């Protein structure tokens, strides 16, 4: 079934990006996580009409994509595909907010400005999240979250979920494809989906039972033990500090405006 397959391919490809040895992968996962969160908070902290002032922040995702050797086309494609609830909601702004705003010598309805701001925010925050995974990988990220203090149960759950998403996704795909081949072109009905989900669920329970046995057979007592991770290095501190300085600068100084003044010498 194409949806499951496509989703699994997304998981695989993004996670595989992190497995390569790139400058981005060498940054400590905790540093990358913290910096990305600071980035997102900075982006959303701008007022609703900020557009140009947000743009210098794009340096962060652009830099990460470069450091991580992430193809820009793939990133843009993911942005376009991500069902933008934000865009649909944001589209109301031009309808509702008609107060004129001066952009240079032109008057634009303020709603369009805020809608553009929403689009920019969307692009920035979503690409940052994707690049975070591309830089750390799911397992690296879960380990980072654990070391940053998230509950162990939760981070262990993330790794197990990720591990078995492929197995169960594969089962789901095969079942759905088998139905499709005998479906004579008809889309799946609830009467078919129900039992299919039921079967998948029963198999999931059976598998969980076997995994539990395998865990007990190797001495599992309830606590998932992991080896110590990578050490925090000076360059990680530099990474976090450097980017946060940039975020703070962009937040306080309207960099594009400033650049414009520099260029034109006008006030």
């Amino acid at each position, binding site marked *: 079934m194409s949806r499951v397959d496509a989703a699994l391919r997304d998981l695989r490809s993004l996670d*595989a990006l992190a497995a390569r040895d790139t400058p981005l992968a060498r940054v400590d996962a905790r540093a990358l996580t913290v910096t990305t969160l600071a980035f997102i908070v900075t982006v959303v902290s701008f007022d609703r009409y900020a557009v140009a002032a947000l743009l210098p922040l794009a340096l962060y995702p652009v830099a990460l994509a470069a450091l991580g050797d992430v193809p820009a086309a793939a990133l843009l494609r993911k942005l376009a595909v991500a069902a933008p609830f934000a865009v649909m909601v944001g589209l109301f702004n031009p309808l509702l907010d008609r107060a004129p705003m001066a952009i240079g010598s032109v008057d634009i309805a303020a709603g369009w400005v805020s809608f553009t701001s929403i689009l920019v925010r969307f692009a920035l925050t979503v690409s940052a999240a994707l690049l975070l995974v591309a830089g750390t990988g799911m397992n690296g990220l879960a380990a980072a979250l654990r070391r940053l203090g998230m509950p162990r149960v939760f981070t262990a759950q993330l790794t197990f979920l990720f*591990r078995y998403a492929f197995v169960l996704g594969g089962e789901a795909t095969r079942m759905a494809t088998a139905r499709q081949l005998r479906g004579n072109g008809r889309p799946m009905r609830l009467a078919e989906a129900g039992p299919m989900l039921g079967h998948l669920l029963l198999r999931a329970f059976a598998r969980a039972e*076997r995994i539990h*046995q*395998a865990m*007990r057979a*190797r*001495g599992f*007592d309830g606590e998932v033990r992991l*080896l110590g991770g990578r050490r925090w290095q000076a360059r990680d501190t530099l990474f976090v500090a450097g980017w946060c300085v940039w975020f703070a600068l962009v937040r306080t100084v309207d960099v594009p405006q400033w650049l414009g003044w520099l260029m034109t010498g006008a006030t």
Partner: protein
Amino acid sequence: MSHHLVEMRGVSFRYPDGTAALHDASFRIVHGECVALIGPNGAGKSTLLALINGLVLPSAGEVLVGELPVTTRTLAQVHRTVGYVFQDPDDQLFMPTVFDDVAFGPLNLGLEEDQVRMQVDRALQTVGAVHLAQRAPYRLSGGEKRAVAIAGVLAMAPSILVLDEPSSGLDAAARRRLIGLLASFTHTRIIATHDLDLALDVCTRVLVLHAGRLVADGTPAAIFDDREGLARCGLEPPLSWRRRD
């Protein structure tokens, strides 16, 4: 030497819903033996293996591992002695990376981190999977998963290895590597398998299970020569045995 022993004395097992899976099984396997457990589907092979490892407990009779009776109290020791390789490696490779998975057992045993790393490296080397150490399980082929599953069990330094259909789903090259690996071990090995050619290549003794009963116990030659006996159990001699005529 005694911890390499596996023995069953009049063991029977019944599922909670009443179906009998094993009836009055008795055998004794000694140090270093490599035993194949064969039989048609539903004969009770998996049940028998599960009883050896204490995954289930017998309804009657006694299971002894290394002269220790398998009870709820001795389970931890049994798990240290017996290395169990499951039929579906996906059930067994549940950690994020190969290295993490092979380290799972040693970590649970309470070993120090450097010791753990040493055990893991040694196990991975034995199965030839050192280059896979940082790989996530979903990126492994069937043969690689099987090798890593075996490594995960080896890292606990067991005395007895139990394998459930180890060659199923493997391509010829992976299967050949597996056979070489199994033949090289000095542990006591018990292998449940449909792959009778593997049994012929690796094992020195064959136990035949049929409808929950142990119906034959002997050398591969003796067992595979008895065509009628095999046919009664729904089995055939391995191809390589038939071809040698």
